[in-house]
Every structure is written in C-alpha cells, then in structure tokens.
C-alpha cells in the first residue's frame, strides 16, 4: 500500500498524513475542511501525485445534481436522431452520458476522485450520493446495468462550510480540518514554492502577513494562497525588505496590498488604522 507523505511542493502535517493514509487504507472518503486558501483542492492533486494515480476532478456548483456525477440521459439528442432516422436511436446506451463517478469506477487503474466544494450544491446532494460512495456502485435504469467500481477510488471531498452536511454522510467519511499553518510551517510552505526567495524579504513579509491576520475586523483574512501570490508580486517588483517594515515607514499599508486584501472595506479599515498609527507616531 502506497503511503502518502508531503511532497517537495506540498507541506503536509503528520495529522494530515495519518488521515489520508487511513482513508486510503479503509477506502472511505476523506472530507477536508478549512479556511479558504489553505490548500484543500491542492491536497487531492498531491495525493494523486504521491500515490501515482490519475486524478478525476468533479467541481460542484450550486446547480450540480448528484445524478450528473453518475450519468445523464440525453433525451433531446435521441429525439433529434429519431426525427432524422439515425440508426443509433435504437440503442438507448448511445445516449447515456457518463459522469465523473462512472469514469472513476470504470477506470482500469485506481484513481483519486476529487469532489470539490460539496457544500455548494443543494442540501440533498450528499444524501443522494450516500449509497454510491458507500458501495462504490450504482444502477443505470435506462440500460438496466449496474456499474460497480473495479478499484475503489480514493475519494477526497472538500467543503467550505456553507452548509451543514448530513450526519449519515459524515459517518461514512474520515474528516480532516486543515488548521491555519503557524509561522514555522508557513515558512516551509513558502520555501517549497519559492526555494530561492530572499531570507530577509520572507521574514519581513511574514511579519506583515501575520500582523494583518491579527486584525480581527477583517472580512476576509488573507490565507496561504494570498501570501504566495503576494510574495510572487514582491519578488517580481524586486521590493526591498525595508519597504515592508511598517514601524519605520510612514504608512502601515503594505505595498501591493491588492494581493492580500480582497475587498474595499478591508482596504478602508487598513487606511484608517494606518492613519491612526501615523497620528500616534507624529
């Protein structure tokens, strides 16, 4: 059994490794929650890479139905073909469009199936997938065939907590909550992405970053992905580390803040704080 370990560009905590390995060993879905931008979706890609399986991604939207993951019956094209006298029309199987779960089940080798942002869908969505994820099989009514998984896929489900998931569903999953990384881990994560970033720049940037996260009134606290974007911008602009030291500059608004603060209320809040800081200083 292949074991999941953090890779060179994904820093996984021991708890995450245990959770992933448990769900791989027991062939149960792993439910991953956590603040936006802490690498939930990336996790699935990394697991696929680590285990050497292909990745099938199913991104959920508010209109997604559970059935779409299994298959869809394309009645309209069958109607059209019937009008045109196409011989394909006699076999209903020609009009069954496979969904992501079907692909994952029928695959010749084991795969990693990512069900991304399951909470976006309708409240009944997880319930509709209970049996399918439990037995890893489903029945196609139109062709009277049962599709069963050749290899039980590794299922990774992410959620942003917009809706409560039903208990029956939760009971079948392993669960992992990605905690916001502390400074040390964050440094490792940044190093994994930008191995040759300047040490002093990184230190100052992390100072600013964690200071911003300390501010409680923010609507959206910047997370890992925002930090990575910001650092990239800083290196592209070749920003000197001194520019980030807010204590001795006139303004407390970090340079290129657009990458960190995502709405105008937050920017306003910062301008106000900066103003207060200036007044106190002067």
């Amino acid at each position, binding site marked *: 059994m292949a074991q999941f370990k953090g890779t060179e560009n994904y820093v996984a905590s021991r708890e995450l490794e245990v959770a992933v390995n*448990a769900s791989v060993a027991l062939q149960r879905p792993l439910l991953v929650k956590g603040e936006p931008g802490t690498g939930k979706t990336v996790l699935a890609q990394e697991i696929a890479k680590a285990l050497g399986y292909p990745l099938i991604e199913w991104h959920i939207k508010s209109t997604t139905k559970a059935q779409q993951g299994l298959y869809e019956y394309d009645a309209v094209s069958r109607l059209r073909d019937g009008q045109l006298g196409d011989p394909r029309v006699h076999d209903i199987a020609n009009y069954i469009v496979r969904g992501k779960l079907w692909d994952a089940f029928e695959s010749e080798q084991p795969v990693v199936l990512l069900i991304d942002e399951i909470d976006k869908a309708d409240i009944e969505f997880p319930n509709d997938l209970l049996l399918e994820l439990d037995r890893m099989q489903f029945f196609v009514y139109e062709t009277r065939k049962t599709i069963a998984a050749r290899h039980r896929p590794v299922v990774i489900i992410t959620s942003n907590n917009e809706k409560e998931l039903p208990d029956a569903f939760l009971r079948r999953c392993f*669960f992992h909550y990605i*905690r916001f990384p502390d400074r040390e881990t964050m440094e490792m994560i940044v190093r994994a992405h930008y191995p040759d970033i300047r040490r002093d720049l990184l230190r100052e940037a992390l100072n600013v970053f964690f200071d911003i996260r300390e501010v409680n009134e923010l609507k959206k606290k910047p997370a890992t992905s925002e930090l990575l974007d910001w650092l990239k911008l800083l290196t592209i602009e070749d920003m000197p580390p001194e520019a980030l030291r807010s204590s001795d500059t006139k303004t407390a608004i970090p340079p290129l803040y657009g990458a960190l603060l995502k709405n105008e209320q937050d920017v306003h809040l910062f301008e106000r704080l900066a103003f207060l800081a200036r007044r*106190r200083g002067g």
Partner: protein
Amino acid sequence: MFAPFILALRAAGVPASITEYLALLRAMKEGVAGFSVDDFYHLSRAALVKDERHLDRFDRVFGEIFKGLESPSGEAPRELPAEWLRKMAEKILTPEEMSQIEALGGFDKLMETLKQRLAEQKGRHQGGSKWIGTAGTSPFGAYGYNPEGVRIGQEESRHRRAVKVWDQRQFRDLDEDEALSSRNMKVALRRLRRFARTGAATELDLPGTIGATARNGGSLDLHMVPERHNAVKVLLLMDVGGSMDDHIRICQELFTAARSEFKHLEFWYFHNCPYERVWRTNRRRRETERPTMEMLRTYGPDWRLVIVGDATMSPYEIIQPGGSVEHWNEEAGQVWMGRLTRHFRKAAWLNPVDQSHWRYTQSITILQRLMENRMYPLTLAGLETMARELAR
C-alpha cells in the same frame, strides 16, 4: 477496546457512532496508526470527529482518557465569552491603555496585556489565585470563575513542543455554538429564497418539449422556459438609536448578509416602535422621512416584513397615543403595529436581546403579543426558525 473512550466522547457531546468506532478499529488493524500515540490521536480524531466545532471537546476527552488528566470539578470547563474578558479588561486597564491596545492589534493584543497584568497583580496581592474573586469588582465572581477553567495564563500554546498535541487545544476558537457571522447568517437567510421563473426564456423545458412533441405526432417541438431567480421580496425595518446601540455590530452583520442575499430588499428605519413615519438614512433623517402609510401602499402584501429591534422601551410608547419619546404621535404604536401586521401577512420580529430576558421586559411581552408570537431571537437558530416561518 476503546469503548470507554467512545462513551466519554458521546457524553461530552461529540456525536461518534458505532460505524465510526468500527472504522477506527479497522484502521488500527490495518496498521495506519503504527505504534505512536500521536498517530493514534490523529487517526482517532479523523475517524470520530466530523465537525471542527467538536475538535476541542475531542482534545479534552482524549486528554482525560489517555492521560488521566483531571478536569476541573463542577461544570464542564467553558470558555469565557470574549465579551466578559473585554469587560474584565475595562476594569483592569485604563481607558487610554485600552484604546492604545485596540489600535495596535485588537483583541489578541488586549488579552496579552491582560494576561501580563493579571500575572503582576497576582504577585502584589499575596492571595495569589484568588485575586479576582476577592476584589469584588470582577464580572466573573457571580459566574463561579475558575482560573483553571478560563485559562487566562495558558502559555503552552505558544511553545508547541512543550506539550502533547491534544493539550494545546488548538481548536478552542472553533467551538462556538453561537458564532454568528454574516457568512452563516447568509446561509440561514437562504432558506427564505423563493424561486420563480421570470424574464427571457433561455432554458430548455424538457417535460414541456416532450409533451408538445408527442402532441405534434412525433415531430420535434422545442419549448423554452425562463431561468429560475430568487423572487422573494424582503422589507427590513430597523430600530436605531437608544438602547439599540448595544447591538449595532450584530445588526450590521445581519444587514450585510441580507443585502447580498436578496435582490429585492428595502430597508427603513424607526425608533423604538414604528409610528406614522419611517426614514431611509439616519444621517439625513428629515429629508428621507416618509409616511408609514406610503410605505404600506408602496410595498404589497407579498413582501415579507422583518422588523429588527430590541423592543425595549416604556410600555406607554406602545399603548398610549403621544407616548413616543421623540415626538407627539397621534396614534399609539400598537395601532401602527396592527396596520403593519394586517398588511404584511408574512411578518416577523428579530430581537437581539437574549431570549431568556424577554419575559422581564413588559414592552417585549406586549410586542410579542402584537406580533402574534412571531418574535425570534437574533441568533442563528432564531434566524432559521424565522426563515422557515416566513417561507411557508
């Protein structure tokens, strides 16, 4: 094998079930956890806890079962609400210090300073741990404050290597039963959504097409329908000023949530109790004032009326003509309340005051009766009940 553990978890309110227990045992058999306690902790957590709000409880139970850690006697330790700590800080720190700290970095910084201050105080008052209790000014006395339970002095979380993982209790912040952010308000308000098909026909109407095609003798007849939109209309009446100042923050959150959730949202302000006039903006109240009757005429009975107010006032302001604190009102507040509830068949009152205090305030009882018991507390549960009632 771990039956006592599971039972203790369930007793602590972590809903772990047999299925999950069996999964854990199987995973142990598969050797996922190896022979390390830390791994077992991680594994059992992934298998048994399915909600980050329960993680802290899990940590506590785990600590107790596997280390013989004694829990503080009496009630289960409960985190003190941030509000109490703030009050505490107000008592101990000077206003200047408070504002300075607020400007520096908000709550965490505040707690930091408070912690230091408490440590100093302990030194000076030789009583040691009892300092808060004997001072008599502390807001905690009445609640049976226990420094162990509050853990103001918990330094451990700073040095993560020093303690076992579960003792760090990193998930404490997540265990908040009534965390009410505009995000989960939105989710609660979402129940109010009413979908209707209006506008241009852009979606294929499959049942319609099939029916029409069949009637057509088999030749294809496509039918389109408009997309579904949220068609619910919400009229928000908000109480401002006076006693509502204590609830500004939560009302603001509600307002943000409502504004992004409903396309048809109108809001008006009133003071204490709705009378013959309502207004649009507080700053330019005189210019934006409109007669309430006009509001009733403008918005039809299909609008859902949501009144937000603490309903805390003198009873005269509701039952007597001329009882208003601001002006001479020809008709009593209850007459206006009657007009509103008769016109808007779907109406509700959201009250930010703690529900357990409602019956001690006469005006709340009166308004509750005028609203025909459709007053709900401004909590997540209250919002959900309200949404369910209004959506009927």
